[in-house]
């Protein structure tokens, strides 16, 4: 099993957010999690990535034969987990290029691969950027600083394509995007998809799933997955909302 979440219960500040959640993802699969606001979708993404604000009450997560709770945030990232943030944070004064260069090399180090030098990295970054229709001038800027909402999301996808994760979690990546930006972002995801990597797409709306075809759709209500199935579920939600699942 590639990712196995078993009976996961999580609380934050005395509030139970995830309740006995189960989810299995195999290599090469695209899963979508849909649910209303406050159902715990983003919490799931952050618990997977290792954010430290949460208290794990119960459950186990296995990722690529590791007990995920044995790994800290950066170790999970280096093992190939990537979270595209809902609200990417600005880091003033930190240039995008060296930032990503350090990121890719820390992953390579863990994988006992040779580090990539400045020049090769600059080339790689340029080519990936142009694939995603990102202006090269953007690469001279500071991480997320002064970016529009759309630019931030596009830059998340650029990072994803550079780091080439085994499991990419997209947390409401579609929120705040106009249709053109949405196309660029979803194109990027579709280009990255192989039989060896998996995607977990968290979304509120069905719109994103018009562009990325999930193999499985899960409905999350009140901290648990209440229904799983194919893309027909997304259509149901589009039609009737989340009401009938609650």
């Amino acid at each position, binding site marked *: 099993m590639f990712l196995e979440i078993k009976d996961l219960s999580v609380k934050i500040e005395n509030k139970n957010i995830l309740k006995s959640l189960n989810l299995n993802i195999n290599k090469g699969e695209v899963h979508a999690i849909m649910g209303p606001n406050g159902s715990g979708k983003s919490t799931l993404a952050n618990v997977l*990535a*290792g*954010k430290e604000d949460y208290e794990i009450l119960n459950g186990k997560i296995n990722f690529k034969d590791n007990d995920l709770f044995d790994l*800290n*945030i*950066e170790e999970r*990232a*280096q093992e190939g987990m*990537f*979270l595209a*943030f809902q609200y*990417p*944070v600005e*880091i*003033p*004064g*930190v240039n995008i290029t060296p*930032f*990503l260069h*350090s*990121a*890719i090399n*820390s*992953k390579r180090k*863990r994988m006992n691969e040779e580090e990539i030098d400045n020049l090769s990295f600059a080339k790689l970054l340029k080519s990936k950027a142009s694939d995603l229709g990102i202006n090269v001038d953007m690469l001279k800027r*500071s991480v997320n600083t002064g970016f529009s909402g759309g630019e931030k999301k596009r830059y998340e996808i650029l*990072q994803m394509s550079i*780091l080439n994760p085994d499991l990419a979690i997209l947390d409401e990546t579609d929120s705040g995007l106009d249709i053109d930006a949405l196309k660029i972002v979803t194109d990027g995801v579709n280009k990255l998809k192989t039989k060896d990597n998996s995607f977990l797409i968290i979304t509120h709306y069905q719109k994103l799933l018009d562009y990325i075809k999930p193999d499985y759709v899960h409905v999350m209500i009140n901290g648990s997955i209440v229904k799983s199935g194919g893309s027909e579920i997304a259509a149901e939600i589009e039609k009737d909302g989340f009401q009938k699942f609650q």
Partner: protein
Amino acid sequence: MNSETLNTLDSYSKNKYKYGFVTEIDAEKPKKGLNEDTIKFISQKKNEPGWMLDWRLKAFSKWKKMKEPKWANLSFPEIDYQDIYYYSAPKGFEKKPKDLSEVDPKLIETYNKLGIPLEEQKVLAGVAVDVVFDSVSVATTYKGELEKLGIIFCSIGEAIQKHPDLIKKYLGSVIPPGDHSFSALNSAVFTDGSFVYIPEGVHCPMELSTYFRINAENTGQFERTLIIADKGSYVSYLEGCTAPKRDDNQLHAANVELIALEDAEIKYSTVQNWYPGDEEGKGGIYNFVTKRGLCAGKNSKISWTQVETGSAITWKYPSCILKGDNSIGEFYSVAITNNFQQADTGTKMTHIGKNTKSKIISKGISLGKSQNTYRGEVSFLRKADKARNYTQCDSLLVGNQCGAHTVPYIDSKNNTAVIEHEASTSKINEDQLYYCRQRGLSHEEAVSLIVNGFCKQVLQELPMEFAVEAQKLVSISLEGSVG
């Protein structure tokens, strides 16, 4: 005065009586304590003319009546001036390590991280090096090139001998010996430092650095530097080195004076990385520095850039007196304090001439249990029509046991003056750390990256090669601070 000092002084004055200060063996012995004889001894040892000795003695008599300035947000035990060596050449000769194996391995580790070549490491660590290595011959080459342009670049001691007119005219002209007790102290007992004179219209073709001065090894504890840029000239001067220096001295009180005449520009960059004391706050340098620049002529410019990461105590306010019309003063500062370090640093911009402009960018980073204060004074005198100041003070806190303080004074006697002040204090942002770590960077790498980003506005003012080293230094200063 303790008994040891009394004994030392006693034997010292006896020697003086007997031999009149000429015996070489006696002359090499460092003496503790401060009195007129100590000053005479220093002056004699440096073979100075009578007027210089008089100047020193005058400063000393002022010092005796003065008390240390108390404005700073610093706490430290009282300094016993009689328990200090005022002349110790060659530096620490009794304890000089024979090779690098005798040097603190932590220091060597830092040198290696900074990528400093082995031969240079030896010099920095105070190992006796008698081979002539590359940089010395490089220095000689540079010296020849500078001489061709009429640039004088030598030790202050040499300048007193060879250029008395310039020394008499300018020494103490920006920082009068009686300014405060540390300037009086320095004026009385300074032993080394740099002298630079750039002739009219000359653009100095290279960054001048003490590193390139042949006798740079012994820039002592009471350093005195004087830089004069004549009309229309330009010079960029680098002080120090990013590598931590081994130094047994506890008290440092350097004075640096800059004079820019009409249309001249001086850029002065410092990286201060003296021993900050250990994790428990034991030891470390007390660094009381007075740096002041005078924009004497019209359209002149003086720019200070400092990266302060060392010393147990930093007390330092590189300032500009903007006397010439249209003159410009700038101050860019990064001060990082960790463990039990205390820094009280900032600047003073005094606008005297019309259309004078000043800019202050200060970035303070506090970690551990340290205290970091920005203290600045911007004043506009009556005739400073249309003068402007822009001040930006940003503080970054890492952890919750440190402190950041901002103390800006503004005083305007001219109602056409324009003053802008921005200040911010923030804690290192958990979301930023999370974001960086989610991309695979370790906690330490992430902190270092964020802090370097925070300092970028200042670091980019440093000359290119220096900036790269300074970035590494910033990262090293943060080590062990996050767990």
